[in-house]
């Protein structure tokens, strides 16, 4: 039995609405070989070896270095696209509020975000799926939707080139693009090594890039997020999302309970008293250490077919890892109609406590209790969570990650061991939901 759900997708690019089919002789100024020759974009090259925390930070602050430069670049380019009318709506015109309560969940009324057309089908039972060039991917977006290239600098200093050529043959640039259906002001997509057409799966290099971006922005209100397939990623082309919101996310405020500190100096804690169970990684002797530990954990989850979300917060100093099972529950018909009607797909932002609501009545009636109830559905059970943790810790400490079946051979029936499902017949990327 395959699992699929009907999802109402969000359009992230103006070129997404037009579905597949051969698009020859473009003329749309996209990123493929038809149009890419001679294209130029600003290039921001960040300093590679970022010393993780504090220490000699005093010296760093003296420099006239463009600490907020990435902020300025991103905001300036974004505002320019806004004035050009590239976004589907003005997100700042969407009413937003902090829901009264202990955690301060943030609700936004946004009627225009979701498409009003026939929903497409999307497979939810496999976290790893191969890239499909026929489906929408980011090489199909118009160049005007790309704000700038984002790379590590060659010489260890921050560099900015306002008009750098995109050299497809000799380099594999990573880019930052706008999300034309923004959740908030400044909502962008970070697409690592865009021309390599990587599927949505985390690898060490890409995660390090994302962490570096958070550190470069140096703004605790600029966060990056990642959704795996099966955890509400909409496009199977590797990307992270990011935007600004100048209030703390509820998940950032939740108490934590330390689990351990690794040799790399990375501290791992569990979320306590929060509707979704998850781990927090912070510290580390270097940014690279933190990045590697989190990547190891993500890769472990991917290989065990456990959908998850990642939130990079606190300018890259705190990373939240949240395994989830909502899509599977939804496919199995285990989510109440009431929750389904809100059409909220709990991806990383929702789990963090920023919830976009489509209907006015949901917005008016938004309460901490409702938010909690929705998010509690997303969470793994305590038992399953501890099993998953065991997998993660094993992977991080360098032992080979054994396949899930071996580990939970005698687990009770309630365990969501989705690897038990028969693998897909090659060739068909669709999957069916028996609703």
């Amino acid at each position, binding site marked *: 039995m395959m699992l699929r759900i009907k999802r109402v997708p969000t359009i992230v690019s103006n070129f997404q609405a037009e579905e597949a089919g051969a698009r020859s002789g473009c003329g749309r100024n996209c990123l493929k070989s038809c149009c890419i020759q001679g294209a130029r974009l*600003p290039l921001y090259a960040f300093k590679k070896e970022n010393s*993780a*925390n*504090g*220490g000699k*930070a*005093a010296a760093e*602050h003296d420099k*006239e270095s*463009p600490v*907020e*430069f990435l*902020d*300025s*670049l991103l*905001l*300036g380019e*974004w*505002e*320019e696209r806004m*004035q050009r009318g590239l976004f589907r709506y003005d997100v*700042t*015109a969407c*009413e*937003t*509020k*902090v829901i*009264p309560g202990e*955690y*301060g969940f*943030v609700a936004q009324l946004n009627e225009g975000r979701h498409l009003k057309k026939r929903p497409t089908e999307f497979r939810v039972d496999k976290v790893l799926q191969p890239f499909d060039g026929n489906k929408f991917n980011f090489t199909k977006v118009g160049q005007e939707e790309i704000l700038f290239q984002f790379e590590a600098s060659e010489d260890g200093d921050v560099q*900015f*080139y*306002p008009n750098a050529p995109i050299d497809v043959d000799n380099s594999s640039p990573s880019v930052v693009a706008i999300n034309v259906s923004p959740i908030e*002001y*400044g909502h962008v997509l970070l697409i690592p090594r865009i021309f390599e057409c990587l599927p949505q799966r985390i690898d060490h290099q890409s995660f390090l890039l994302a962490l570096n971006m958070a550190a470069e922005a140096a*703004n*605790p*209100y600029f966060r990056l997020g990642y959704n795996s397939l099966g955890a509400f990623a909409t496009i199977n082309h590797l990307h992270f999302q990011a935007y600004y*919101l*100048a*209030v*703390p996310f509820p998940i950032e*405020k*939740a*108490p934590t*309970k330390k689990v*351990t*500190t690794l*040799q790399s*100096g990375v501290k791992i804690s569990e979320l*306590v*008293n929060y509707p979704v169970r998850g781990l927090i990684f912070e510290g580390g002797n270097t940014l690279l250490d933190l990045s590697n530990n989190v990547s190891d954990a993500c890769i472990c989850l991917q290989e065990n077919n456990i959908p998850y979300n990642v939130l990079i917060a*606190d300018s890259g100093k*705190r990373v939240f890892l949240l395994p989830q099972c909502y899509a599977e529950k939804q496919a199995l018909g285990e989510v109440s109609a009431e929750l389904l009607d809100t059409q909220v797909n709990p991806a990383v932002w929702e789990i963090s406590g920023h919830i976009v609501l489509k209907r006015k009545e949901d917005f008016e009636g938004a309460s901490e209790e409702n938010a909690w109830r929705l998010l509690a559905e997303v969470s793994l059970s305590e038992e399953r969570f501890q099993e998953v*943790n*065991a997998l993660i*810790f*094993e992977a991080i*400490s360098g032992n080979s990650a054994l396949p899930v079946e071996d580990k939970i051979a005698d687990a009770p029936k309630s365990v969501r061991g989705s690897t038990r499902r028969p693998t897909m017949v090659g060739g068909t990327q669709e999957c069916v939901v028996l609703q």
Partner: protein
Amino acid sequence: MESQLALIEQSFNSRYSCHVREALDELPDSFTITDPSICGHPIVYASRGFLKMCGYSREEVIGQNGRIFQGPGTDRRSVMEIREAIREERTIQLNLLNYRKDGTPFWMLFHMNPIFSKEDGTAIHFLAVQVPLSGRGRRRGRRSHDSGTEDVIFGSCRKEVCFDSLLEVGRVLEHNNSVLDSEDSAGVVDIEETCEANELEKRRAASAIKNILSVLTHYSELTGRLVCGKRGCCNGTSPLGSSVAISLGRIKQSFVLTDMHLPDMPIVYASDAFLKLTGYSRHEVLGRNCRFLSGMDTDPSTLFHIKESIRAERPCTVRILNYRKDGSSFWNLLHISPVRSASGKNAYFVGVQMEEGGCRNQGGGGLSTEMRHRSTVGAVRVALRTLSMGSGSSKVE
């Protein structure tokens, strides 16, 4: 950096009479005073006790943000709590790990109080007292899973650990022991997990705050610009609280914010760069309409164009002749744009000024004028998006 130092001087001198520093210097406690209205929310005063405790000199500390004392062992959630207390302009007390100049870490009880202006109820400074802790907390290292004997003492922001989960973690960790934190790695300082302030230390903090506040209150009476430790009622000449001021303070460009809904659209915020460009001081511009920048030779049709755009709630970019306080004129590449608040409706106008030919616009080396205009507008939008979103301190214990 000199302009920042000048602002720092101003921060104190405009508020308190000149002998305040001497009086503060006499207090034995360790404390710092920061100014949220200056870009970067820097320290504007550091006591002798503080300098001694952390090993820095006064010059190394004044003008810096408090984050320079944080390090790898500093709990990030605590840092976030402090940031939010600043944003919400309220008191906070917690145990915090900081680092001295020589890199050694130490635990302290951190107690912060906002200092409010009696005129308009805004937080004009934050006062932070630090009490070094002597307590011995739980040490880092191999966990003893069996114990009920452990002093499981946590700082004020943590919850009790339930022993079940400790045991469970123990199971997981058992076969991973070899790779977990070992204390034998050279150079790793053995920091305690956490440290709790005792009653005596808490009382020290409270009385220090009281003493310092009374010194500040006294010296503010002498200038007539009274301060107090508690927020009084707000008058509304400067309705943007420190949360927005801090966000806006990150922006290095010259700009002002005017309130669309108040009569004659007064300035409610002016950046440091604006004050520097025009030569006015903050309280000389807050509450006034921008027209004071225009003068004899300012082109009336340009003024009309601006007025029309404001009326239509539309952005516009103009080149206008403006005048500084000293009467000298400059060509201003001005961009104005309406900005919405959290309600989604237009609430403010932002005006971004760039002096034509001015090379003083620091930072953003590669950005064009248009880009700098826009990035300022963008940063303002982000800051105002959450203004009046329904603050109310949401504290999670």
